[in-house]
Structure formats: structure tokens, C-alpha cells
């Protein structure tokens, strides 16, 4: 039994009809409920909930402040390598694009680490393109061991690995796993992932669960919003998160809300996720999963990020580059364009101005 079985049940739901049939009364009931079930979640994601965003926001803010306080955890990504064997139609690292690929040496990793650590950030997310040859688990592990000298917490966002590989990384001091399903809708997933091992839908879907079994302290999931109908995708993501939370109560399950961003190619997303839609998703996530961390990346513009900090977000990236070695070298190819180029100091100032305390360190690797 894995989430795949739950997903198989959920995909039988007549979403189009269901989403249209919810009424204001259903939404109000869902907003007021203490424990929300799948039905309530769907009501909050439905068109009927659109006039109730303010009520949802009030409750989301209360829940967030009560559980997390007036604080915002900060982190930043570090790109280790951009070699990739997949052809995904929405990503600059896709194997079809011809640009000089790069992989950091251990010395280069150290230099990047020094620059990032000097900004005060103590939580790091390391990323690679998907290539078992160029950036295998052993390479990630080697980098993580160096990075532990500079950071209190090191998480990974790499291709799906086996439970044994995840365990090895946990033992090396990696404490968090981020892995986006990209698209939960299986036919769309097949269309968008043209070539490479990433085509194996289930290997990716089950990877967060393997991470929980391997003992990561936190596991973060998400759908790349815009690839398919956002209401359904957000619904699947939240139910996936609750599945993991129920089955692995000792693991902190978090959610990310990445929206599609421009990249090297010309792909246009199928579903336009407006700012209002993004807000509706965040609020539905918070009400459905009151204690889950919700991360906000620099894919979003500064003006929007500044508003979203009050609506349920608990983690933000800052001082970001999406290029390999982007903190110390020039000329890399970004995985996608970011929208918020502000420095760590600027994000810190903004948070204080908004009445929030930036938290640079919220855990210590105990291995």
C-alpha cells in the first residue's frame, strides 16, 4: 500500500462536477471545521470558495501565528550540478538543451558555502539535475559532508533515490528531502516527461514515502502549479501530505507552492494560476494541514511575497541563484528565472518591517 493506491481512488472522483456543485454553505462549514476532511478541502479549493478568501485568510493567519509564532524560517538553494538525462518540456536543464554543463568540485562547493554562510543563512537546500552518472548519491553525500561544516541543516532536492541511498544520506547528516511530483495527473505527467528515467511516474510518487522511511526529519512535497488544473493538483498534493503525515508522524511534512516560471524553452503552461488562485491554494493547505510548513520560493515577485508572509507561509528562500555555482561564478544557466532578487539582508529587513522575525537556524544536524 502506498499513496499510489489512494491516488487511484481519488482519480475516480468526478472532479469537474464536484468542484461546481459546492455551495457557499459548504465553504463556510469547511472554514469553520476544526478537522477538515477531503470533502472540506475540495470545497475550499472550489470556485464557491473564491468569495471567502478573506475569511479563510483570517483563520489561516490565526492558525499560523498560534502554531509557528511571528517567525519566518529562511533558507537558500545551492545548485551543485546541472547535468540531466531527462527531457522535461518545462525545464532549462532538460537534456535537449545545448549549453556547457557544470558540476561543482568539492573546492568550489566549499567556496559557495563560505559565501552563503557569510550572509548568516544556516539552512541550505542542495540541488542537482537528474543524472545518476554525473551527480550520483555518493557525490551528493560527499558535498553534504563538506556543507555540514558551514550549515546547521542541509536538505536535498535531487532525483528520486532508493530507501538505502536515502538512508546513507541521512547518516551523512542530510536532514531534509524536497521532491516535487511536478504533476499528479498521470496522463499529463507522461506528456510533459518525454524522455529519461523521470518518466516512471510511480518511482517519483513513492520517493517522499521512501524518504520518510529512511528517517529524514523533514520531507517537503509539491506540484509545479500550472501544469494541469490547479484545483485538482493542489487537492492531490494536500492529500498526499496528509497521507505522509498520518503514516509517518515523526517526520515533518512540508508543502511548497512553486508556480511555473520562464525557462530556456517555449513551453506554455496549460493552466493559468493567478495570484488569487495561489492565495486560495495556500489558504486551503493551511486550513487542511494546520501544522505543516509551507515554503515560498523566489519564483514569486517581491510585492506578492511581501503580502503572502501573513497568509500561512512559514519558510522563505532568500539570496537565491538557480545556477550551478551562482554565488561565486558567472555565466551559468539558471534552471528557471527567479522574480525576487533581494539579498538576505533585504528580506530580513522586509520581515522585520512586517512584524516577523527571520529565523536563520531552526535545527542542528545531530548525526
Amino acid at each position, binding site marked *: 500500500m502506498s499513496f499510489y493506491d489512494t491516488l487511484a481512488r481519488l482519480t475516480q472522483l468526478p472532479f469537474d462536477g464536484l468542484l461546481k456543485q459546492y455551495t457557499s454553505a459548504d465553504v463556510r462549514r469547511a472554514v469553520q471545521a476544526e478537522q477538515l476532511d477531503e470533502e472540506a478541502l475540495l470545497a475550499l479549493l472550489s470556485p464557491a470558495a473564491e468569495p471567502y478568501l478573506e475569511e479563510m485568510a483570517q483563520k489561516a493567519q490565526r492558525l499560523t501565528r498560534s502554531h509557528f509564532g*511571528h517567525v519566518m524560517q529562511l533558507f537558500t538553494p545551492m545548485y551543485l550540478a546541472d547535468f540531466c538525462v531527462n527531457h522535461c518540456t518545462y525545464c532549462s536543464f532538460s537534456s535537449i538543451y545545448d549549453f556547457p554543463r557544470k558540476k561543482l568540485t568539492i573546492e568550489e562547493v566549499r567556496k559557495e558555502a563560505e559565501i552563503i554562510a557569510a550572509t548568516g543563512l544556516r539552512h541550505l537546500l542542495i540541488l542537482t539535475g537528474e543524472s545518476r552518472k554525473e551527480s550520483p548519491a555518493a557525490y551528493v553525500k560527499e558535498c553534504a559532508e563538506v556543507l555540514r561544516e558551514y550549515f546547521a541543516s542541509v536538505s536535498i532536492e535531487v532525483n528520486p533515490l532508493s530507501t538505502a541511498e536515502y538512508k546513507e544520506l541521512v547518516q551523512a547528516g542530510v536532514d531534509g528531502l524536497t521532491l516535487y511530483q511536478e504533476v499528479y495527473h498521470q496522463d499529463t505527467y507522461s506528456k510533459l516527461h518525454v524522455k529519461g528515467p523521470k518518466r516512471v511516474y510511480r518511482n517519483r510518487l513513492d520517493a517522499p514515502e521512501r524518504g520518510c522511511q529512511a528517517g529524514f526529519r523533514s520531507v517537503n512535497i509539491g506540484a509545479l502549479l500550472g501544469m494541469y488544473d490547479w484545483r485538482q493538483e493542489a487537492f492531490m498534493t494536500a492529500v498526499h501530505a496528509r497521507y505522509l503525515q498520518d503514516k509517518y508522524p515523526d517526520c515533518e511534512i512540508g508543502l511548497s507552492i512553486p508556480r511555473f516560471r520562464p525557462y530556456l524553452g517555449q513551453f506554455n503552461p496549460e493552466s493559468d494560476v493567478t495570484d488569487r488562485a495561489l492565495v486560495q491554494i495556500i489558504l486551503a493547505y493551511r486550513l487542511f494541514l494546520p501544522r505543516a510548513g509551507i515554503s515560498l520560493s523566489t519564483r514569486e515577485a517581491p510585492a506578492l511575497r511581501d503580502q503572502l508572509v501573513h497568509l500561512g507561509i512559514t519558510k522563505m528562500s532568500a539570496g537565491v541563484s538557480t545556477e550551478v555555482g551562482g554565488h561565486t561564478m558567472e555565466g551559468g544557466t539558471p534552471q528557471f528565472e527567479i522574480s525576487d532578487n533581494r539579498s538576505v539582508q533585504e528580506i530580513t529587513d522586509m520581515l522585520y518591517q512586517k*512584524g516577523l522575525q527571520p529565523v*536563520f537556524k531552526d535545527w542542528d544536524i545531530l548525526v
Partner: protein
Amino acid sequence: MQDPLIIGGVTLSSRLFIGTGKYSRNTLIPEVIARSGSQVITVALRRVDPQSNDNIISHIPEHMTLLPNTSGARTAEEAVRIARLARAAGLGNWVKIEVINDQKYLLPDNMETIRATEILAAEGFVVLPYMSPDLSAALRLKAAGAAAVMPLGAPIGSNRGLKTRELVRILIAEVDLPVIVDAGIGRPSEAAEAMEMGAAAVLLNTAIATARDPLGMAEAFREAVSAGRRAYLAGLGPVEEGASASSPLTGFLG
């Protein structure tokens, strides 16, 4: 009124313990300490960063007794490791054991907490375990060497009050250790009620940190805890179910 609370050889005149976790800026902490009159403050080691310019410890006045907590620990081993790190970092030998492996409600794991308490008490720590209010667990914590027990009033951060009232009452009656109500207290009246029941102290964070005016709320809690304690010491009058009849039914017996 001389009514000290003595824990681990430290004499305290304030029975309000506070936290550091949810403030909008660390610079509020000294003001909250001053207004609350608190002498014990808990701090999550996970948030302590000696390399930071804004290290949380630097905002805590010297006279406070630091109560580092093991927030984030999922097992006894992790809690023990965090406690040792805290002591090695110069944060003293008091420790609040928090072992939580339920990320949905953040309820403590009493069995792991007992194991961690045994190990740390044997190493000379003054151990204050955060626990679900359960009599057998509390007695085992005492046997393991705990300096106090800290049952929850309601889940952390919920501000729901003293939902575990009856169980806490039993701990106060049966466990020969200070009982400090920790977590869940949302209103000064609830803190006063815990104190009236005979709790030795209360520990809270969210209620002050998320109030519109944290400093005003800190002061309100100071007064409530003090009032509740005085009421307990003064001995509450008996509660009558109905009015006393002026013509008693058994009056003819003379």
C-alpha cells in the same frame, strides 16, 4: 509574602516561567521578562546560534535561570544529545525534556521522556520533563530523578486552556514533586486556575507572544499567577451545590 519555589537548589520567587519562541523580534524578550517578573526562561537549543549577530541568548538578562529545551527531539537519544550540547554550550545544567514524535498535534512521548530523564538526571542535570498528564508516567519520572513534572494543559500553541484539569489535579495530589503546567494556557484566568489548584508554577509562551500587546499580557500573567498562588495558600472555601437551608430538615434533632 515569603513563598519560594525551590527547584534544583535554585530559589525562585516568581512562579511564572516563560518561553522565547514566537516573538516578532528578539528585542522584545528583555521587556517581556521585566514585565512578567519571570525568573526562568525556556529556550530551544535548535534556535540558539552562537555565530549569529542576533543570538537569542544575548537577549536574556544574566539573572535569569535558563531552561534549554530539547524541542525537535524525536527520541530519548536525540533529547540526551541536545541536552549535552546545551550544557557544553554553557547554558547551564537545567533542561526541559521535550520528546515529540507526533508532528500533527505535538503531543509528548512519555516513554521516551522517561528514558531521557533517567539518563540526564544520572548525569547531574536538573531535569524538567514536559509530559502528557498521566499518573504512572509522572511517578516514573520522579523515580527517574526529575526535579519537577510539566504536564500539558492543552496542546502546544493552542491557547485552549486547562483541558487536562482533572488529570493535572491528580498529579498535584499524588506526585511529590513540583507540578508545573506547561502548554495550552491561553488566558491569565486559566493560569490563575492552575495555581489555585495547587500547581507549583505555569510555563507559557504562545499566550504572551501572540497577544496584541505582549508586554501588557506579560504583566497580566504575572498578576494572575500571583493571585492564583495566594488563593491556593489562603485555602479556597468549600463549594456548595445549593444554598444552605435556613430551616434544616434535621433541625428537630437539636
